[in-house]
């Protein structure tokens, strides 16, 4: 069933009795050509592009809970492609271009809103660094715009420009960045994949891999064995636990990242802003809540909840930038579990086991990458070759000395 304005009108006149479930609830079959483990944004996008762009058949997505119940529903919904390094920027720009056409592509309203993202500058050295990054973005076909202090003041007059310690000196804007309704991304990909014959199997937990003579033959699940020609794992947050079942240790630690929503306010923030001197970023949802976040807590965690020191730190960052925030009440806060990789960049690669493929290590930047991650992982699964924008995301980059360390932090996950 295609969604359209005409369809809504017709349903309105006939008592809304014609709507169908957006995807089926099939029982698992004994064997598929491709099994994707993980029904989050990346797994569903992978299945969607496998079916649509790479003409693959007999695909299943296996999810231990319900689809979209993990990090695709727990993030701060920001999309952008303001990276600098060669291994990253073409990939994230590919992702942003896919976001721009996504709703037409999968016929679902994901509320893609290119309201712009602004990284604030607080020192001359930071301006130099941001000019360099902006030029790298432009060289890779993205958009970047350097704003003066007065330009920023015109758009965001309520910021604390004369903060004694961190005065605002300007900003680097990416106008094509913005926000997306995150749940709708999972639902849109699920519906698009399902309508192309992909079986989405929920409440089905993978409990092991069947590996014989170095070849993966399928997955053991809570609903029995499911054979597969190829298995793709996209379970960021729990990657280490799942891949341990295949006997692998990963260059990943799981950390908790907290996010926050305020009570609903009238429109105040036109775009996404990020504090350049501390770690704080904020946008306003269409319901009016300010959605914001900051640093990870910094210790290994699978708890999906954090601790108070980081909440205080994020609030302090917010107040330093945006003093008007002090009167706003916090409505909700939650934690999500991040695959923090050793260099802060993801992995989309084959494993040493034939037929077993891996997608993970997204740190806290996985949401914006969803379309390109799905496309590139589908490309790898379908052709056994990496997509041209994802050639750097290899397992062996650590032993080869080819880390993609966007911030230059070194091999310590809690610093990325």
């Amino acid at each position, binding site marked *: 069933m295609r969604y359209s304005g005409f369809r809504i009108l017709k349903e309105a006149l006939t008592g809304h009795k014609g709507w169908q479930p957006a995807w089926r609830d099939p029982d698992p079959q004994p064997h598929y050509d491709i099994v994707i483990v993980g029904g989050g944004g990346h797994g569903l996008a992978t299945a969607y592009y496998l079916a649509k762009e790479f003409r693959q058949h007999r695909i299943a997505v296996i999810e231990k809970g319900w689809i979209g119940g993990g990090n695709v529903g727990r993030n701060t919904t920001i999309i952008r492609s303001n990276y600098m390094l060669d291994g990253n920027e073409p990939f994230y720009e590919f992702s942003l271009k896919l976001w721009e056409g996504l709703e037409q592509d999968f016929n679902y309203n994901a509320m893609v809103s290119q309201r712009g993202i602004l990284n604030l500058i607080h020192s001359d050295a930071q301006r130099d660094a941001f000019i360099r990054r902006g030029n790298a973005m432009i060289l890779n076909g993205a958009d970047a715009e350097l704003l003066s202090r007065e330009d920023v003041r015109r758009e965001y007059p309520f910021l604390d420009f004369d903060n004694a310690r961190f005065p605002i000196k300007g900003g680097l804007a990416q106008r094509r960045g913005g926000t997306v309704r995150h749940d709708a991304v999972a639902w849109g990909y699920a519906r698009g994949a399902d309508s192309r014959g992909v079986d989405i199997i929920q409440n089905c937990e993978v409990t092991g891999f069947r590996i014989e003579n170095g070849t993966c033959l399928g997955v053991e699940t809570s609903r029995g064995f499911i054979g597969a020609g190829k298995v793709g794992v996209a379970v960021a947050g729990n990657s280490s636990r799942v891949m341990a079942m295949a006997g692998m240790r*990963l260059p990943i630690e799981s950390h908790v990242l907290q996010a926050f929503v305020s009570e609903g306010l009238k429109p105040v923030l036109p775009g996404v802003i990020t504090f350049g001197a501390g770690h704080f970023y904020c946008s306003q949802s269409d319901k009016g809540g300010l959605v914001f976040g900051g640093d990870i807590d910094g210790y290994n965690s*699978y708890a999906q909840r954090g601790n108070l020191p980081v909440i205080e730190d994020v609030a302090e960052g917010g107040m330093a930038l945006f003093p008007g925030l002090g009167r706003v009440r916090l409505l909700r806060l939650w934690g999500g579990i991040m695959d923090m990789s050793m260099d802060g960049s993801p992995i989309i690669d084959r494993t040493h086991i034939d037929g077993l493929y891996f997608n993970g290590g997204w740190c806290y930047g996985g949401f914006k990458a969803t379309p390109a991650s799905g496309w590139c992982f589908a490309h790898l699964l379908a052709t056994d070759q990496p997509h041209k924008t994802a050639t750097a995301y290899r397992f062996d980059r650590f032993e080869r000395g080819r880390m993609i360390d966007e911030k230059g932090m070194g091999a310590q996950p809690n610093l990325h």
Partner: protein
Amino acid sequence: MIINHPLLGPCDAQEFTYKGDARLIARPDGMSENAEAAFHDYLYLRDNPAGVHRELWFHEQGDRSWLVVTRNTVTHEITKVELARDVARNMGRSA
């Protein structure tokens, strides 16, 4: 989280800097045959368990001691705190 320091008593985890899996105490021998592979695994690969995890916390804002904290990564419950020095000595790593 409150870390019960063996010398100082209960301290706020905020005073500490997290330094990762306590297996990092067992630094490989740089002169051995397979040092390159051993250091790759040591530097980059982690067990990352959901559940009981032994990990290093550095008391940076306190007495600058290194601790081995046994903590559950699912509940954040801390069940054991030792001086990293004692743990390393028991492994035969220091005099």
